[in-house]
């Protein structure tokens, strides 16, 4: 089932959790809501579930306005961050809960409930734990039981709040893969909230990046990683070098140095305005010929030789002093350069993304 949200606004006191958010979640997709804590992603998820009311805006489930539908009637499966398993009930009773709470007219008989619960426990591969209490389970097992419980009511949508947040690293990785596989089997429209970029990029069909209550970018993992749409996304996904400068035809001026860019992709930026340029570590090359005027000047601080590629940490010089740079090089290239700590070099970007520092504020006015 598809989900749309239209112009959602939500404030908590002075804090804006959602500022006019509109999104489409196509049927059958697994979508990640990704952002730092406080960005509004959990609030959005809870509003979709009906656990929270938006101040204004709509939630459409399969095209029908569900804004006034109580969470009880929305038929959404919600998996809580800390699972919220009922500790006085066995695993079996937890999973059976939703079915047993149905009105008498639509409630299945005990035998049907039993069959259905056991099927679900098989699905999450924990049928052997049916008679245990939640306190006797490991974190990963609780997570899967919580999922089985949510699936028992045959939800139209599955919503997961930080599904792997409370697990340790090893279990996390396993469960991620398992959730992806499960989704491929069930194809139920699913949204999960996470602050972990790796988790979002690895598991989701599509990633929604949020910050300060606004949607920054929506796209496939490749899209959001390779073509970040905003400075925030650049900074949030992967590591990046950020350089301040002035925009000019064909290049960005940084002190006395100039960095070339492809003007076609930035034709909306006015000449002379303050900009931020973003370069990924692997998109920077190091030139030892300091007489060259290409790129920007820097001084080598440390060379880290481990892993499949080497990392070089550098300090900015002159107008960029105080700034740190990080460059990722193939081992062979590093060997050829033979860098020494303290050596003066120049950094040459192979690709440069440029954003205006104060977009939408003509004349450099500040709010």
């Amino acid at each position, binding site marked *: 089932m598809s989900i749309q949200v239209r112009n959602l606004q939500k404030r908590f006191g002075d804090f804006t959790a959602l500022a006019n958010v509109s999104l489409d979640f196509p049927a059958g997709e697994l979508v990640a809501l990704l952002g730092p804590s406080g960005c509004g992603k959990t609030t959005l998820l809870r509003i979709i*579930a*009906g*656990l929270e009311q938006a101040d204004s805006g709509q939630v459409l489930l399969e095209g029908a306005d569900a804004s006034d539908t*109580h*969470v*009880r*009637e*929305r*038929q*959404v*499966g*919600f998996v*809580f*961050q*800390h*699972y*919220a*398993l*009922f*500790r*006085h*009930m066995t695993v079996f009773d937890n999973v059976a*809960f*939703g079915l047993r*709470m*149905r009105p008498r007219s639509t409630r299945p008989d005990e035998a049907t409930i039993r069959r259905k619960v056991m099927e679900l426990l098989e699905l999450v591969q924990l049928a052997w734990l049916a008679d245990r*209490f*939640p*306190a006797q389970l490991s974190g990963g097992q*609780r997570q899967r039981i919580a999922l089985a*419980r*949510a699936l*028992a*009511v045959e939800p139209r949508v599955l919503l997961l709040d930080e599904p792997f947040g409370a697990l340790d690293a090893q279990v996390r990785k396993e469960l991620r893969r398992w959730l992806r596989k499960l989704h491929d089997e069930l194809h139920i429209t699913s949204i999960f909230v996470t602050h972990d970029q790796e988790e979002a990029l690895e598991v989701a069909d599509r990633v929604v990046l949020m910050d300060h209550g606004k949607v920054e970018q929506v796209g496939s993992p490749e899209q959001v990683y390779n073509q970040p749409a905003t400075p925030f996304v650049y900074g949030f996904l992967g590591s990046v070098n950020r350089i301040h400068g002035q925009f000019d035809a064909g290049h960005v001026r940084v002190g006395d140095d100039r960095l070339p860019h492809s003007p076609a992709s930035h034709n909306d930026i006015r000449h002379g305005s303050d900009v931020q340029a973003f370069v990924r570590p692997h998109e920077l090359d190091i030139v030892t010929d300091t007489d060259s005027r290409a790129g920007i000047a820097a001084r080598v601080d440390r060379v880290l030789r481990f892993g499949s590629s080497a990392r070089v940490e550098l300090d900015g010089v002159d107008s960029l002093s105080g700034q740190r740079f990080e460059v990722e090089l193939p081992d062979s290239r590093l060997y050829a350069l033979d860098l020494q700590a303290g050596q003066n070099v120049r950094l040459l970007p192979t690709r440069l993304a440029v954003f205006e520092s104060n977009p939408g504020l003509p004349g450099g006015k500040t709010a």
Partner: protein
Amino acid sequence: MSGLSRHSVLPGFGLSLGYTLVYLSLIVLLPLAAVFAKTMSLSFVEFWAIVTEPRVLASYRLSFGTSLLAALINTVFGLLLAWALVRYSFPGKKLVDALVDLPFALPTAVAGIALTALYAPNGWLGQFIQGDLGIKVAFTPLGILVALVFIGLPFVVRTVQPILEDLDSEFEEAAASLGASRWQTIRYVVLPVLLPALLTGFALAFARAVGEYGSVIFIAGNIPMVSEITPLMIITKLEQYNYAGATAIAVVMLLLSFLMLLLVNGLQAWTARRTGRNR
């Protein structure tokens, strides 16, 4: 791990434990032993005759009956009060919350005369209850019930309140998202979590009520066979210098108290085992 932890780096184990044991023995254990030793001076037949005197039997019925009823009333209303204090916002809430402990802080004799002033036939409430409804409260078992409700009131509220405060909203949200109605959520998700605390509060209120003296004697009227509580029977025997008789009744009450204490401890251990570990 052997019994004593001699290898702890902290000092003062011998001193603190020794002092604790000596003080405990002198203040608590020795006097208690005196009670049990005194009953040994009675033969079982004598003992049985004393503790089954009709007047004493009537006092058990009264004490246990009214205590049970008072504890039940406190369980129901204590839960409502705890619920209101944790879940609802209303003006004067802080005051209500602080005053719930009044029965712990107010001397029982003061409570006794205050309740009598309220429920006596010519009292604030008594004149209406007796005049309009024809029900006599003070100087009847009903008056005893009122006093026992008063002194037992904080127990259920204070055992349930922290549990309710610690209960994350997630559990009820989960139940709602699974289609449970609000009533079903409370019945199947919230109440089972509160049950051990409710039982503990009930047992504590009951135990306190059975032994209560000060707040009851003023309002009870102390009519033999009608409104004499068991602690009063002990006093009566004492005033007749019938030490053996007083002691025999005391032993019956003590045994019952210890039973209640065991029950409460068992309950708490059971709760801890069942749900103590975090989610």
